[in-house]
């Protein structure tokens, strides 16, 4: 029998990204109304079409109701008590990284994100977003040589307005859901990626989102367009300081893949999850969707969700193009009083489309971890296939694991397979490992890592190692 006290007394790793950067910021007043939206748009010197987009979204949002179907228990959000724009004060335009406030660079260094160009060896281009604005984007020239556009979405609005106007809101329309409408009205920054025809992006692209201010929400928007026969791997990471209050994060990510293009989107989400009593933490309401427009296009989502007090996230694929492929690999870990309601939607519209879903949920403490997914075969999806696998691991008898797969088929010439299982850390396996001299905590983390292997294998190298370590840290002291 596992010694409960020994485990509970084990050293707990504090949330190491919980520091606050003391920096002068420019904030607008709290609240949300048309004037605020106009002000955000004006601050970002946006063209009229974008202001219209925002105002229309705002009107739709006002008529919508906050969804409650996920039965997540959280206190009501006062949308008028949030600051919708917060940016570190900077001198005029920055021409190189040397001009970025050293405090900011230091912050990202502390987070392990290399913004300085000498760290080229990592070969990952980074777009760092601090509260509402993008601070810096590295490797831009190298990428530009290949025709790849990688910049903040605010810059893209200025320099590539035609692409933004053409694609923004085409995958996730403003009226899609409550949080997408809110994001469309107030989004402040985010990343924009454009991979031209036939180009394989020479390096991984990455965005790093940092919430610093306690009373402002973060509403970033990411748009990735992969033209014919191009491919890109995109990584996203997030952290936030520890505050007693809850901070709202409502992001929208849109991916578009044309003929033979492939986009791999990986996330390691480690927002502050609140303390053991459930005080503080990020409310993470995210809409992520990819559209496989072209023939043989492919969109692959992989995510490791360990943070946030509340996660509400369903990265989806609309499989329109013939023989297009959608993938979703997810590990969601919840501990203490965290609640995660996450999963995916695979909508098969075109013929011979394929999708794979692998979801691993680990619930510990008093947390609630749900997989909620939809697989739909439309009438034209002849010869399409889906395979889903959802496994849950329960640690302790206070945590809950739920599985809600919605499966709908209107096409006889298609196949859907779904399987789900629930298990716990087997005492026999633990005993075996311990009898071989492996420490208890290490044995648990080995088993968890084995449980998640299918997903970790899909993550880019750097992320896989980080995710593994992250899970081990998060679980410390939670096994009883």
């Amino acid at each position: 029998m596992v010694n409960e006290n020994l485990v509970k007394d084990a050293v707990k790793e504090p949330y190491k990204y919980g520091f606050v950067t003391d920096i002068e910021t420019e904030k607008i007043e709290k609240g949300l109304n048309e004037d605020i939206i106009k002000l955000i748009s004006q601050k970002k010197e946006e063209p009229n079409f974008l202001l219209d987009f925002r105002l229309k979204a705002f009107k739709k949002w006002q008529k919508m109701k906050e969804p409650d179907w996920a039965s997540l228990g959280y206190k009501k959000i006062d949308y008028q008590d949030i600051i919708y724009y917060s940016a570190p004060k900077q001198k005029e335009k920055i021409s190189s990284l040397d001009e970025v406030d050293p405090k900011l660079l230091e912050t990202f260094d502390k987070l392990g994100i290399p913004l300085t160009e000498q760290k080229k060896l990592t070969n990952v281009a980074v777009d760092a977003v601090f509260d509402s604005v993008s601070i810096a984007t590295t490797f831009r020239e190298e990428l530009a040589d290949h025709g790849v556009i990688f910049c903040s979405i605010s810059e893209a609005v200025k320099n590539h307005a035609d692409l933004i106007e053409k694609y923004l809101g085409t995958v996730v329309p403003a009226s899609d859901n409550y949080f997408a409408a809110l994001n469309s009205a107030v989004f402040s920054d985010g990343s924009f990626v454009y991979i031209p025809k036939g180009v394989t992006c020479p390096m991984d692209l990455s965005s790093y989102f940092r919430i610093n201010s306690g009373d402002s929400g973060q509403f970033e928007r990411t748009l990735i367009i992969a033209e014919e026969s191009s491919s890109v791997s995109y990584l996203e990471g997030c952290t936030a300081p520890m505050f007693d209050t809850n901070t709202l994060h409502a992001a929208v990510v849109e991916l578009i893949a044309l003929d033979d293009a492939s986009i791999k989107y990986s996330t390691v989400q480690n927002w502050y999850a609140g303390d053991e009593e459930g005080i503080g933490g990020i409310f993470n309401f995210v809409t992520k969707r990819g559209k496989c427009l072209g023939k043989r296009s492919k969109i692959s989502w992989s995510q490791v969700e360990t943070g946030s007090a509340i996660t509400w996230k369903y990265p989806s694929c609309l499989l329109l193009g013939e023989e297009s492929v959608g993938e979703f690999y997810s590990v969601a870990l919840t501990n203490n009083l965290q609640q995660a309601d996450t999963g995916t939607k695979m909508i098969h519209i075109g013929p011979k489309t394929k999708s794979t879903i692998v979801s691993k949920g680990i619930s510990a403490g008093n947390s609630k971890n749900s997989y909620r997914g939809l697989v739909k075969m439309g009438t034209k999806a002849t010869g399409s296939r889906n395979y889903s696998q959802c496994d849950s691991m329960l640690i302790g008898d206070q945590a809950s694991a739920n599985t809600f797969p919605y499966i709908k088929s209107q096409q006889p010439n298609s196949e859907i397979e779904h399987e789900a299982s629930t298990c716990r850390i087997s005492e026999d396996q633990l005993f075996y490992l311990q009898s071989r001299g492996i420490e208890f905590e290490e044995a648990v983390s080995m088993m968890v890592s084995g449980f998640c292997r299918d997903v970790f294998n899909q993550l880019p190298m750097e992320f896989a190692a980080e995710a593994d370590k992250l899970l081990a840290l998060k679980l410390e002291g939670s096994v009883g």
Partner: protein
Amino acid sequence: MEIIEKIKTNKSDDNLTEIQKICLHKLQSSPLPNPKSEKWRLSNKSKLSNFLDYSVNEKDSKFDIPYPKNSQSTIRLIVGENCQIKLLKKNYSIQQLSEDELEKYIKEQISLFKQNENWSDLLNLSLSCKKNILGLKINGSKIPPIEIFSHASSNSLNSKTLVIFLEKNCDVELLQVNLGKENSSLSQSTFFCLKENSSVNHGVISYGKNRSNLLNSLNVIQQKNSAYNLGSLHFKFNYARFEINIKQSTGNAKTNIKGMQITKKDEQISTYTKIEFNGPNGFLDQINKSLADDKSHAIFEGSIIVPKIAQRTDASQLSRNLLLSNLAQIDTKPQLEIIADDVKCKHGATISQLNEEELFYMRTRGVTLAEASKLQLSSYFQEIISFIPISKDKWDLLDKLLNEN
């Protein structure tokens, strides 16, 4: 509100039983189920309103029993036909529940109802007059097979209620047949209480006719060491819902369910199951099959609920579906809600058509495509049919499924 008016105009207040009054009162706050709720969102609204369209009928017309009673020992009962039964034998006894017992138990059940989840039961109990409620207490072993029929009359809305207590250590085989008539609606609610160490092989066959409708609800409470085996088949209904609620009140019980629904033309048949484990060491093995052809729609939603107290639960649920036409559709949603950690729970779901490789293999052996399809279908059906306690020589269900349109 229409349905409530309909019941009231049919009868004066004095003629309503107390249970009817309680249920009518409850229905008043939600005369129709919430179409946005999980349990009703896929339900065809116009079909449901068609169900409620017929006038309420408490009298029964004659009907044909689909197969003859070929064994003298079989006990055959028809709900609504004032059947008086009191069998006191050496090994067993079957007798009717007294009015007080019946009322007390039904009231207890009503107090546990949730408005939206038990809407079908509320409707049933609002409609069922005394005559159409049959309560049985079964005791003992080596009991001859029991057959209970509920049927609808044409152009009317009929309601039948069945309450069965299986006393301790009782072991019985019970077949329930719900028969639809042309243009009819039948509301059938069954309440089963399995006491300690009792076991039942329960078969439910719901067999409709053109444009017949059915709301069939089954509520089972299992006490410890009881075993509940259910084999069910629903077919030939314009609109049918089969709602199963099983509660293992203290765990330590076994539940086996094998169910099937077959939809053709523009029919919609759905099965909803909710299995709750309120104690440790519970066991569940469930398989639900659907077959949808033509323009029909088959739905399955099954939830397994394992709270903290239900340690060492072993539950599995499988939903297997065949979609045979371009215009038909299938929705399935098996779900798990688990808090206990020392459990083994799994579910699976598949939707596909007939296996092409198998068809090809048979055709290379000279079997025609039609024959090969039939062979495959019969193996698909057989797994469920063999679980229903009725022999092939009595009523050849497989033949009905394969050869009747």
